[in-house]
């Protein structure tokens, strides 16, 4: 593989990895607050179909993204209500959300199949900076949603690790009883984080249908939501590491077609992202054990004041 092929693969990895990045950032916040949401795939696909539909009917992709964020948030709200207020099993609720999202989006999206969008979200090269060789193309020649993710990563990282709000979120995820005693409103923090996760998952899905494809295809997330959940673990619940993981998977995705001429079976190449998922999880689990950090201690455990 020559330099040109390699370099364009690196450049293509960023937009390809952007949906993973948004979804993973959202799941990191939900899990940091102690809520495991396996409904990422469902929230993403609903974001994709709602975002596409609204963009199609209004001609405004930003309204499409807003509607997708709202759709993701509403779905996440269901999960929040079931797992925080009703204290039900989070795994089952999350799986149900995924199935619900996949089914409903298929129904809603039937009429959008094969319909082109009237508008496009294009790259906006940043003046001067985009002229820098290599770095310019790598960082400063993208669409606005990619730029937003560049900003979101440090902002969300800072918020989580260096602010009062971040301490509240993390303490709720580690030890909700203590946090509660310290005066943190456990329920409010968990609700907020779960819904925020839905907002980002919705945007992730809409990026696929409005910017990346751009088209509506039934089941178009094709497991991206599950990869985001694996990436959350790989990232050790840190937004910064999520960036690395997301682009790694974006890179694998675009490599598929660049490796085809080498004679590798295309069917085998299609399994690459999932093989990588397993590898990444193995690595992450090893690291969690070694460094004794990682999973929020109260992840997946419903909190009840009476049981304090």
């Amino acid at each position, binding site marked *: 593989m020559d330099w*040109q*092929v390699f370099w*364009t*693969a690196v450049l*293509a990895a960023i937009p*390809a990895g952007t949906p993973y990045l948004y979804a993973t950032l959202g799941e990191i916040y939900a899990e940091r607050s102690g809520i495991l949401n396996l409904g990422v795939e469902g929230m993403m696909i609903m974001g994709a179909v709602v975002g596409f539909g609204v963009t199609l009917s209004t001609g405004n992709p930003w309204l499409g993204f807003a509607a997708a964020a709202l759709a993701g948030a509403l779905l996440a709200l269901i999960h929040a209500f079931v797992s925080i207020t009703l204290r039900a099993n989070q795994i089952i609720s999350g799986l149900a959300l995924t199935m619900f999202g996949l089914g409903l989006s298929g129904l809603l999206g*039937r*009429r959008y*199949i*094969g*319909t*082109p969008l009237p508008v496009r979200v294009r790259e906006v090269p940043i003046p001067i900076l985009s002229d820098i060789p290599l770095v310019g193309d790598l960082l400063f020649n993208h669409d606005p949603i990619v730029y937003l993710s560049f900003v979101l990563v440090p902002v969300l990282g800072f918020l989580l690790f260096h602010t009062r709000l971040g301490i509240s979120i993390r303490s709720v995820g580690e030890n909700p009883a203590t946090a509660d005693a310290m005066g943190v409103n456990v329920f409010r923090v968990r609700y907020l984080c779960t819904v925020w996760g839905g907002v980002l998952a919705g945007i992730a899905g809409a990026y*696929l249908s409005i910017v*990346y*494809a*751009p*088209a509506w*295809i039934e089941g*178009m997330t094709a497991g991206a939501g599950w990869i985001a959940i694996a990436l959350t673990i790989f990232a050790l619940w840190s937004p910064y590491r999520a960036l690395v993981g997301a682009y790694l998977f974006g890179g694998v*995705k*675009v490599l*598929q*077609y*660049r490796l*085809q*001429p080498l*004679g590798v*079976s*295309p*069917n085998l190449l*299609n399994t690459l992202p999932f093989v990588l998922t397993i590898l990444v999880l193995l690595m992450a689990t090893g690291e969690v054990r070694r460094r004794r950090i990682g999973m929020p201690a109260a992840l997946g455990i419903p909190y009840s004041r009476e049981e304090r």
Partner: protein
Amino acid sequence: MTEKKRLSRRDFLKKAGIGAAAVTLAACAPQQTPTPQPTPQPEAKEKKLKAAFIYVGPIGDYGWTHAHEVARRYLEERYPWLETTYAESVPEGDAMRFIDRYIQEENADIVFTTSFGYMDDTIRAGEKYPDKIFFHCSGYKRRQNVGTYFAELYQLFYLNGLMAGALTQTNKVGYVAAHPIPEVVRHINAFALGVREVNPEATIDVRWLFSWFDPAKAREAAESLIATGVDALTFTEDSPTVIEVGQEYTEKGQPVYTFGHYSPMQQFGPDSVVSGRLVRWEVIYEDILAKVYAGVYTPENLADVDYWWMLKEKTVELGGEFGVPINPKFEDALKAKTVNDPLLGEISVYDLIFERLKAMSEPTVVFDPFTGPIKDQNGNVRIPEGRRATHDELWTIDWFVEGIVAEIPR
């Protein structure tokens, strides 16, 4: 544009069948206002034909199913004696249920099944309903009441190949392909034959999507081809994605030439689309339905009825839009490049394209791209000198011609 062209044709037909149309309109109109009408033609009212269409995909705005639907609408308007019904997105294993419904509940006389995967169900339906007529699109199994039909594009792929070969600056041409089946392999070969005829230096690379419709994958595949230096691209996929990629690169100052597939797609890449392939299914449907209506086709005599229609029958048309065989933006470049043809002498590629188009459109089809000697990728002569590939050879082709640098996945 599509509509313009269709309208003019429609107008002509309307003049021809205006009396009959008036009768049907009157029959359909609400009955409370009886207006005086010319004497109705009795036979137009008496004998009606009901045709059902089974589609594999959603109709959408372009692509395979859409092209069939355009034909269905056109014919329903054209023939007052014709009534149609259709079902979209019918899974390939589920055709029988729909055929049962159309025949038992809606009394359809003829059923068109428009996907390869419906083949066995269509034959079974033919056995179950021996007094009904069935037509299966793109298959090879027939019986006394089941015929087959297909609008074949390889001649157009060849013509597009001539253009791609003349326009490429890098001598690298790409093809984003759906599935490794004979139909697609034949089209890649025809395209490659065109490319190499005017540019023996050029190579043709292929990426396989393993999907008939997946814009995201088509984009990744197209970009990966461009990354290897490809600057002319065509495809088999049901969306204009490859064209949009070509247009984006062209706008950024890196020209990528593309060719539309199945539907008018020039609008998606006005600076990138050179030409393309268009299908008029209505030509075939018209012939079938008129013959069924006239009693030429009966449930007893279809065992050898196989439509394999191309340019000669005007079932397919060259262009990125109906009536625009070559985007005017590329005319000069195609006129500037000349080649030496053994029969035509020194000739510009532009003229060569129209010579070939004319030759393939003639009733005797005096030219065929699959005329020997044709070698495969390993240099073995597959079609000997002076012989044309037969229908069966083309129908089952599973090897690539010389110049293609990709492999067919097994």
